[in-house]
């Protein structure tokens, strides 16, 4: 019962916030709805026993990536967006098309088997660490290079050119 109730609560919050992201005109409202989505996703991860992923989701996504977004919005003082002709076309044709695809996907996915109960599978930091530093050591090291490149790219792009 507990699991079902919690799932429904957080799923509803999640979807509502995602739709709010689409409905809001001002980017800061969209960013805040995205943070809500990420927060409730973290709680859903907890329901699936992924403790560590849930914590990292909050720390990295909500606490670092979205801060960057909010920071950029504040820095550029971005105003409300105005809809253009092409975006109206996109709404008229795109939304129904996406809805159809989702309906089809949901139908296919809902035939899948398996149920989730609370607490019978825990992805704690120890197990994940073992996997990450043994089986996935090479990809892990490669990501560090990726991050280094991203940092340098960001610095080069955002730097004001001095003439």
């Amino acid at each position, binding site marked *: 019962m507990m699991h079902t109730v919690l799932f429904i609560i957080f799923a509803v919050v999640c979807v509502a916030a995602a739709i709010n992201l689409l409905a809001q005109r001002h980017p800061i409202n969209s960013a805040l709805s995205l943070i809500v989505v990420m927060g409730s996703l973290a709680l859903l991860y907890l329901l699936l026993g992924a403790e560590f992923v849930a914590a990292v989701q909050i720390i990295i996504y909500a*606490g670092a990536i979205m801060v960057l977004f909010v*920071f950029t919005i504040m820095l550029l003082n971005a105003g409300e967006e105005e809809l253009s002709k092409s975006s109206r076309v996109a709404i008229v044709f795109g939304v129904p098309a996406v809805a159809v695809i989702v309906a089809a996907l949901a139908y296919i996915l809902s035939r899948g088997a398996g149920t989730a109960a609370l607490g019978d599978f825990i992805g704690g*930091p120890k197990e994940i660490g073992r996997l990450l530093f043994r089986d996935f050591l090479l990809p892990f090291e490669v990501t560090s290079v990726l991050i280094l490149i991203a940092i340098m790219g960001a610095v080069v792009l955002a730097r004001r050119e001095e003439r």
Partner: protein
Amino acid sequence: MPTWAQFVLLSAAKSVVVIIILLTAVAYAVWLERKVVGRMQNRWGPTRVGPFGLLQPLADGIKFILKEDIIPTNVYKPLYIAAPMISVALALMSIAVVPFGEQLRFGSFSTPAQITDVNVALLVLLGVTSVAVYGVALAGWSSNSKYSLLGSLRASAQMVSYEASLGLSLIGVLLLSGSLSLREIVNGQSGTYFGFLPRWNFFPQFIAFFVYLTAAFAETNRIPFDLPEAETELVAGYHTEYSSMKFAMFFMAEYTNMFTVACVGTLLFFGGWHGPALTFLPMVVQSFVPLFWFAFKIFLFLFLYIWIRGTLPRFRYDQLMAFGWKVLLPIALANIVLTSLYIGLTTP
């Protein structure tokens, strides 16, 4: 009564008790700060309300509630109202995973002295800290005032920068204790080194402690890192446009964060509630001795906060950023490398 109802009731009761104690402690931390800083600057601090000004927090609280709540015309209202709530809610949330002592016993009933015991408590704390930036950032942005915006831009950049050092400084401790649960980390610190030195993580990890302390000062926006507020430059920084209870909420959030930081520092580096056993006391009092040691260590932490406030001047903004990235972060990384080398060489 079903178990889940029991669980909910117990958690709610604990939360209420902890929040009441915490907010009282916050009020008296303000009193303590005014008193101590006053003495350091050759003044008396509050003296008028009650003996030693002890009722001053009460008077302040009444004043905050009764003041008119001004909402300036051009603010972005929903966020302007939400920002202080976000701040204070997140500040209070982080205390939920902090253990205050071992089991509390009332007759046959016993419960851990903690709201929830989470396996990844330390990560939860880091997560809540990292989300706490939003309160400050949104407050400054929604106020639609240049002082607020500057203050909040500074604050968010500062908090994001120092969060990295804060997180990295904890890793040395984690390597030593091999757990993310605060309770297990504390239990790993019982006993002594060489028979006289308490087995606190502070001794092997004093570099990490220095980094933690510095980063924690920056995270809580205290002097010498109180750039976001910097009265002389920015009026009051991100809460310039706030008044009455909304201002009080930011104030509460700041002091609650101080308490959380002090709690985490005590738990990770100073053995939490472990201390001399005080066996001469009667049995009834005995069970509260760990709580007493915990409170005492937190008091020392707070005193250190106030002491530093009374001593150090404020950093300049570029100095702050350079210090965070070029000094603190490398030190934290070096500490991790050294600690893991030590552990790798000593464990067979």
